[in-house]
């Protein structure tokens, strides 16, 4: 394992002078015959879990098994929005911890993840959505989260391109304003966790596909991969859209339906939009990157699928809605569209914790919220593996809640993914 140097302006300068290449971010390893913990899925959840297992609990004999390249799933396909203004106390508390971790992540990982806290604005076009915004704001305040309902005038000041004049169908009546929310460089988060986890001893196996989980007397004994078997007593499923398929290997059925979530980006233009804008009724959210591109997202596709090919209707519907919000951008050009796979649950809450199979844990069901939860999920799952029980933050999100009928109430606020 190569020594990982610190990144800094000074080292960047030295590197520039010497022209010597930077050492590798992570190395290739042979597949060991056994690991203490095997994590399925090399996205932000899996890699963060590996990182916190090592950093917080000294557990370093860990393999992260990724069927493609790291961050090839939802982690590299989301719209990189971070926020904590959720509807329920448990949801707000949970995501607030994630925001805190994101705020310190560049220092923790010595890798600039470019977290820009530009503020997050959710527009309300009807009395009922305004009521939901207030509901979220009031719950958020009780959790100490900066969140409030603002007027159309305040909206115009924060985002001058928004058309707040009287729309026949979608008047802008107000918005939920959440200053700590913002955008981040999603790939950097993946690479930063991978580099740090690797530096502390975790093995990252890319291009290695999971083919089976061996269970004996209700206990995990090992796993099968395209590069050979691994003996282990602990397997963590962090595979989002593919969660049902991996769980089925252990004989577990989940309350999950996989749906594509599409996103798109325009050509760059000069900066004109600072905050992240979300409209639930118009099923759209938009932000402008530092490069000048507008990044768009919408709600999940109308039917279940494992396809990431994307649809024309996503782009036409999206354009209709963003042009309704900002008529002046009609001449901007949509450059590229793509899709990720979301593991949707009936109550829009995650499923995180143990399963009926001893040693098989899930960190799935994130639906459209997975990326923003990466750090806290990694921290909490690592804690659960180390201590043997789910901590307070994740207790409400167990798999057993579906059988006991105690669903989470996030349902109420889940009109749109972000």
């Amino acid at each position, binding site marked *: 394992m190569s020594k990982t140097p610190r990144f*800094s302006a000074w080292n960047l300068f030295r590197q520039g002078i010497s022209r010597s290449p930077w050492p590798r971010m992570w190395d290739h390893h042979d597949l060991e015959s056994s690991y203490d913990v095997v994590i399925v899925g090399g996205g932000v959840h899996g890699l963060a879990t590996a990182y916190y297992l090592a950093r917080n609990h000294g557990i370093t004999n860990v393999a992260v098994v990724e069927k493609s390249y790291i961050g090839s799933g939802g982690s590299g396909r989301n719209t990189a929005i971070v926020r904590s203004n959720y509807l329920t106390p448990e949801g707000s508390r949970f995501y607030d911890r994630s925001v805190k971790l994101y705020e310190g992540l*560049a220092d923790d990982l010595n890798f600039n993840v470019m977290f820009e806290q530009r503020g997050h604005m959710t527009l309300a076009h009807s009395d009922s959505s305004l009521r939901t915004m207030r509901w979220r704001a*009031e719950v958020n*305040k009780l959790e100490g989260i900066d969140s409030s309902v603002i007027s159309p005038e305040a909206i115009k000041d924060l985002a001058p391109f928004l058309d707040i004049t009287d729309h026949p169908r979608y008047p802008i009546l107000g918005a939920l304003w959440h200053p700590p929310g913002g955008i981040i460089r999603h*790939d950097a988060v993946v*690479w930063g966790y991978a580099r740090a986890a690797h530096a502390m001893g975790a093995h990252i196996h890319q291009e290695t596909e999971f083919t089976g989980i061996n269970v004996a007397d209700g206990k995990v004994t090992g796993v099968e991969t395209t590069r050979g078997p691994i003996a282990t007593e602990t397997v963590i499923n962090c595979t989002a859209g593919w969660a049902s398929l991996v769980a089925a290997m252990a004989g577990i059925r989940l309350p999950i339906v996989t749906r594509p979530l599409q996103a798109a980006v325009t050509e760059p233009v*000069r900066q004109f939009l600072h905050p992240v804008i979300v409209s639930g009724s118009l099923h759209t959210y938009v932000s402008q990157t530092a490069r000048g591109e507008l990044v768009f997202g919408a709600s999940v596709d109308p039917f279940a699928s494992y396809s990431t090919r994307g649809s024309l209707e996503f782009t*036409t519907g999206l354009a209709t809605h*963003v042009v309704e919000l900002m008529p002046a951008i009609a*001449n901007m050009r949509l450059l590229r569209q793509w899709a990720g796979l979301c593991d949707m649950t009936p109550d829009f809450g995650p499923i995180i914790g143990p399963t009926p199979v001893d040693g098989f844990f899930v960190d799935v069901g994130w639906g459209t919220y997975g990326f923003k939860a990466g750090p806290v999920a990694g921290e909490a799952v690592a804690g659960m593996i180390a201590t043997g029980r789910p901590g307070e933050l994740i207790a409400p999100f167990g798999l057993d809640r579906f059988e006991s009928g105690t669903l989470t109430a996030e349902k109420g606020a889940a009109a749109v993914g972000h």
Partner: protein
Amino acid sequence: MSGYRIDHRPGEVIDRSREVAFDWNGDSYRGYMGDTIVSALTASGVRVFSRSYKYHRPRGILTATYHDPNLMVQVGDDPNVRGGHRRIEDGMQVMPQNAWPSLDFDVKATNRLVGRFLSPGFYYKTFMAPRRLWPAYQMVLSRFAAGGTVDPQTDPGRFDHRYAHPDVLIAGAGPAGMSAAIAAAEAGASVILVEEEPQLGGHLRYGGTEDLTALSDLIDGVHSHDAIEVMTDSVVTGRYDHNWVSVVQRDLPGVSERLVKARVKCLVVAVGTLERPYVFKGNDLPGVMLSTAVRRLINLFAVRPGERAVVLSANSSGDAVVADLERAGVEIAAVIDARTGGSVHEATGAKEVSSVLDSRGNRIEADLLVTATGWTSPTALLNMAGDRPTYVPEAARYVPNDLPEEVLATGGMVGDGSTDLLIAHGAATGTEAARRALTVKAFWQSVAPAGRRIEMPKATPAGVPELDHEPHPEMFRSSTHGIVDFSEDVTSKDLISAAKEGYDSLELAKRYTTVGMGPVQGKVEAVNALAIHGEATGSSLLESVTTTWRPPYAPVRLGTLAGRKYEPVRYSSIQPWHEARGAKRLVAGQWIRPDHYGDPSGEVRAVREKVGIIDVSPIGKIDLRGRDVTRLLELVYVNKWSKLDVGRVRYGIMCAEDGVILDDGVTGRLGENHYMMSTTSGGAGTVWNWLDEWLQTGHPEWDVKLTAVTDGYASINVAGPQSRELVRRLTDIDLDPDVFPYMGVHTGTVAGIDDCFVWRIGFTGELSYEIHIPSFHGLQVWEALLEAGEDLGVRPFGVEAQRILRLEKGHFIVGQDTDGLSQGFGFGVDWAIKLDKPDFVGKPELDWQAERNDHPHLVAIQTEDPRLVPVESCQIVATDGAIQGRITSSRMSPTLGRSICLGQVDPELARAGQLIQIRLPNGKSAPARVLTDHAHYDPEGARVRG
């Protein structure tokens, strides 16, 4: 016009009789009709059109097409316009982009000096400490944003959409595409032929005499077929599942652009090839051009691209360009033949090429370096169709591999050959495309209308002849390093160092270096990037990799994707009256409703003291007929229906299988086997589908006929102590309470309109009659009521007054006072839930809810301070800060002169007189008390029954 314009060329597309005046960078220029921005400027001696993204190096023509990364300009308020494609118009204002403060002087060009420190992803490695400076760093980084500008005042322009159903759609109208179109049409198929350029012909347009002759024959052939619809200056932007194909049409009168959405039975991809740049030191200097760019400038626009040229040639296009240059009077300084091992080492010059150093060490003075080093197939449409093109080393390019049945490819992207061979291959492909398309068409026609089951047929695709590949040397990078991605300023060195840092999967390298992420999406550079990445990793040979192209193939305006603004909106037949009286508009789903007429409190008082009328037409109405209607009602409602007599209505609640409240409303029995169900206005569609679902999937044998008649009736609620008197004056229906009691329904004539039905219900808490009138007559009855009730003090009231009235009465609204987790018990209607019924939707969950008995309760709440109205959604908080419930509805009651609320609270708080604390938005707490009954007003209900 300057000396760069040469004599007439046989294939030129400019109209020398029509000069066009336009501005570039603040100065005025002239060109000819048919010129592109760039051809006109080149004719006037302009060489630099932009500055590069990262190092701000001057950039000139590379490909002279839509896909040229160096020719992005701002036209008026239109950013990122392709200067190599957009034709000039009189008065056009063209400005350079990404060149602040000017094309010539450029402070950020100092980046070139520090370029060695701007290694790929440098920003990930710095700007971290001290953290407080990060916001400042953000400002710096965002200054680097490339591209044009958008203006808040921009007029969005006019765009529209069109659906099309061609048998065959052909992308690309070069020789192969055109002959495919002709052959398909001759085989009886309807064809849409799409060409990205303004003219048909592809490379034939800038070819020699033979090419031009072949072209005119093909054009005649295409025009001779009415079954061929031609779309020039149009581009196929995407191929989606089930051959759903998007085309952007640009050359239209009336609209800026049109999006064509085509269900194509067979798609033919004939987009030819793009010429590939060569990577070497200085390869991005203005004056370094591709051979096809030069051939376009000379043969289409009669423009001389330089004075003294060096040509690096690896193929026939390189040979042809030499001839073209000579004809254009350009001195040929040297021809370096790559087929015999020649290559270019370096191009040097300050702001443009001044000399070229070849691989043999000769330095040649020249202001033009033309490269012809290979072709790239733009395989985007094939990738979107699920193909993974394979690399053919002999031809040094990718070719189609495994296409689905409904997609074919022809022309240059399949192989090489003489014009005749390409035309022959196109024809064979067109014939096969027609055959496949017509098989599908025949099957689709046989389907409608059909039986109960369909199995898709398995077609038997016939093959299409192969097209050979001319041998071509593999040329990607010289022995020196240069620019690979011109849009993103990514060098071959960057790609190599990224791979060494660990980004050794191609996708990681792309994301890290941003190669291929720019506005031209690496169309011309992609294969160079693959080759150089392979060179760095030593592993991935081109054979083993391919890159995924995501739609759209070419960028599309948001306005084009949006099309015209069509948002379905619904109006009651009485809405014109509301508008005329200045009613405040309320958006309720698709409906536009009157919120109030200026004085909601006054409207409330009118109802309480005299009589008011409200337009409730959006209320869902479903006509149910048949012997088994009662069984259906028993199944979908939680309450009982067996004993409902004709002429009576009953309030009912529907829950879903998880026990959560779905909808509520009254259903009346109009005849032995005839019922009328009402739903909430928002729930009308859901409930209609819900009934159909339970019938079709659960009880197809039941005799029930459903007809949604919401729009068939205008609905007017007449409420207040005087409502009986008012309605009496207009109807033949006997309103005597003994004949027409509370919760009764009768049909008859109202204000001269037959076939109305009227039911007596009390959402407002007052004596009230809901009149349902055949909708085209709604306005007439509305006006009759106002006229007849004038002396009674009748007043129209809106949704806001109705909300207050029902809140005073304590009636909940599904979706406001209930939420996504609200099961049936706890909302004051427990009496309606009949767990002793054998079966109904959601029964088990409601059974268990009753057992657990730990559910929240909806209660009426009054604040201790009667003037304080806690805004809806305020939380009810325990002293320890725990949430115990929330306010779901709140208003100031004009009737009681105090604030009133409904709220959900934990069961232990659902006790009359219970003191609770409401947390206000300002953080203060407001004490309040729980009431005995839901009703703040007339709890006994004497008034409704009056």
